[in-house]
């Protein structure tokens, strides 16, 4: 039914385009000249016909069910477990309820049928009157030979502004929800203990309502949420990944940009970029099933104890995954260094590698640093590879052969399965998320500052 209504709105909008266009053409008589091309009058009418109706339709559909629910439940103030009651009413109304039918459910169901019908009819009425009102309004403007071009531009500008507003509001919403849950977490666990504690074992706070924690348990919880091992693990694996990705990616980028012939470049660049297209879960099991065991047997043959889930395996594979980010971006950046700089260097007798080292790379440096920092934040946020290959034990270690864990892995571990959302354990996920977010934000800020500083120096 909703789909039909939507189709009708769009059909009206489309036909009002043609109507508006032909009405505008009719205006051209004698010495009257249109203020815009006839098609603009069509767009103008179509936008006025479609947009208000769509906004009303969307808004109504969004809030309809919540309002009906509130209205019905307000009639039954003595009912316990209200959500369940409402679910039962709905399934009774739809005729697939198999439990005990109480009198209340029957009454509520009748009320629901009435409200639903009312809501539906009023939606149609509202949408129809919106279409009529706005079409009449816009039609009058057309008859007055309005500046349709400017008006259409204005409407489109508002439309585009709204889109960016949605994106911004979503971001703010996510931050707010992170912040809100984190504050709840920090009301149980001291923020100092969380940030500087060196032991992470949230299992100890297994599913428990925060309000029922006894003082003894609280003391125990105190050192269950030290996030230092997670941050250390994250930074460590990212470091290993960057040790792999930066040299290989950068050198590959330089080769592609400066040395490779056009035909080699044409084929090898897409092939390298395929690396970025492989799903991370594939990298994950490659790391866990192939690289991890390989390192373990290699280590054993050398007399070392190597965990089969090691930071080294995860970091190495993550580094390989990141190579195309660095190589592709630095290739583009090196290519955009003006040819005249290279020629200036050659003309004074510099060789190719001298030119690259002393002129091209310094000129491309801001962009290269930017691409590296982009890769770092990719490494920090990467989840799948570390979940599969780095392990879950929160060891505070700098031995790359031991298993370690990262923030993202722990967030996954905490939230997998059925969880009560008010236990400190699940709230810890939000606190971790918030800290990770702040850390990445800080990194991006530094990156922008660095890039800006070099740009001032080199451009």
């Amino acid at each position, binding site marked *: 039914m909703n789909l039909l209504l939507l189709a009708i709105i769009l059909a009206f909008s489309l036909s009002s385009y043609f109507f508006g266009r032909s009405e505008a053409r009719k205006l051209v008589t004698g010495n009257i000249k249109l203020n815009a091309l006839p098609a603009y009058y069509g767009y103008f009418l179509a936008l006025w016909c479609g947009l208000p109706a769509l906004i009303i339709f969307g808004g109504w559909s969004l809030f309809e069910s919540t309002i009906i629910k509130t209205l019905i439940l307000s009639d039954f103030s003595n009912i316990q477990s209200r959500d369940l009651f409402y679910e039962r009413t709905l399934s009774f109304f739809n005729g697939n309820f198999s439990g005990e039918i109480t009198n209340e459910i029957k009454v509520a169901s009748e009320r629901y049928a009435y409200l639903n019908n009312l809501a539906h009819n009023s939606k149609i009425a509202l949408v129809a009157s919106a279409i009529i009102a706005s079409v009449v309004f816009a039609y009058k403007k057309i008859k007055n030979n309005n500046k349709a071009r400017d008006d259409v531009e204005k409407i489109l500008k508002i439309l585009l502004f709204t889109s960016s507003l949605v994106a911004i509001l979503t971001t703010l919403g996510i931050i707010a929800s992170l912040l809100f849950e984190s504050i709840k977490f920090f009301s149980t666990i001291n923020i100092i203990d969380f940030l500087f504690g060196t032991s992470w074992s949230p299992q100890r706070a297994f599913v428990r309502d925060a309000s029922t924690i006894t003082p003894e348990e609280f003391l125990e919880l105190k050192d269950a949420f030290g996030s230092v091992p997670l941050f250390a693990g994250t930074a460590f694996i990212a470091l290993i990944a960057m040790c792999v990705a930066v040299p290989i990616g950068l050198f590959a980028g330089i080769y592609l940009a400066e040395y490779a012939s056009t035909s080699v470049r044409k084929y090898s660049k897409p092939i390298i970029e395929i690396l970025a297209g492989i799903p991370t879960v594939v990298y994950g099991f490659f790391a866990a099933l192939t690289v991890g065991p390989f390192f373990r047997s290699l280590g054993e043959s050398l007399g070392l104890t190597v965990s089969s889930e090691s930071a080294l395996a995860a970091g190495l594979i993550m580094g390989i995954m990141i190579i195309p980010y660095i190589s592709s971006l630095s290739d583009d950046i090196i290519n955009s260094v*003006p040819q005249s700089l290279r020629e200036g260097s050659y*003309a*004074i*007798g510099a060789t190719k590698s001298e030119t690259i080292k002393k002129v091209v790379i310094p000129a491309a440096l801001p962009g290269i640093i930017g691409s590296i920092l982009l890769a770092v934040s990719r490494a920090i946020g990467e989840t799948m590879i570390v979940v599969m290959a780095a392990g879950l034990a929160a060891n505070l270690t700098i031995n790359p052969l031991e298993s370690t864990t990262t923030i993202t892995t722990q967030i996954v571990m905490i939230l997998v399965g059925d969880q009560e959302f008010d236990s400190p354990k699940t709230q810890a996920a939000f606190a971790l998320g918030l800290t990770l977010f702040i850390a990445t934000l800080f990194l991006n800020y530094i990156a922008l500052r660095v890039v800006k500083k070099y740009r001032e120096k*080199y451009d």
Partner: protein
Amino acid sequence: MELENKKIKIQAKNLNVYYGAKQALFNINLEINQKEVTALIGPSGCGKSTFIRCINRMNDVIDICKVDGSIEIDGSEINDKKVDVVMLREKIGMVFQKPNPFPKSIYDNIAYGPIIHGLAEEKNQMDNIVETSLKKAALWDEVKDRLDEPGTSLSGGQQQRLCIARALSVSPEVILMDEPCSALDPIATAKIEELIDELKKSYTIVIVTHSMAQAVRVSQKTGFFHMGKIIEVDSTDKIFKNPSNKMTQDYITGRFG
């Protein structure tokens, strides 16, 4: 005339240049005299830039470019495989159409060449090279207090003089200039021309220009290129007052090009 008394510095014989299948220069024969300014004029795409890029083998950089024939500098062939282009380019400096200072400080821009060729062992030697090069390029007084600032912070005319100073820093014998004033305003152009006049006392200069007036002002010898061929070469005086070829006449009077 004085032309006959001059020693020949660069001599091109039967030079042909191809970009892929397209031939850009046809049988060029040209003599360039020592310590004077030779101007190359002609409409766009006539091959004059291609020609001067042959003199320091800059065309080596372009994959599809093939050079055929001979260019001798002081009597020795430069198109020989045995010739080291690094040494060749130390001897032949080049200034480009658009000023192209490196993204480095003014000082480092000049020090770049001497470092590559190992010309200075100590800091004060390098300071000396930088100072003399900038003085020769008539830029020293304007930049001596801000040698640490990026070369790109200078004005267009100053940047071009910086590039000339950079070319001078390795003590070349020849300076090639590919439309060095085309991106500059008249005042900066006048300064560069003044500089060229000064430099020709010690260097052999080949300049490509689109400005007939500039060729008259700065050069002693002029070559007119058209469609990859040399139409006429003679003293600048003769070319602009009494050309022997009808096409040259038409070009300098602005009838085409």
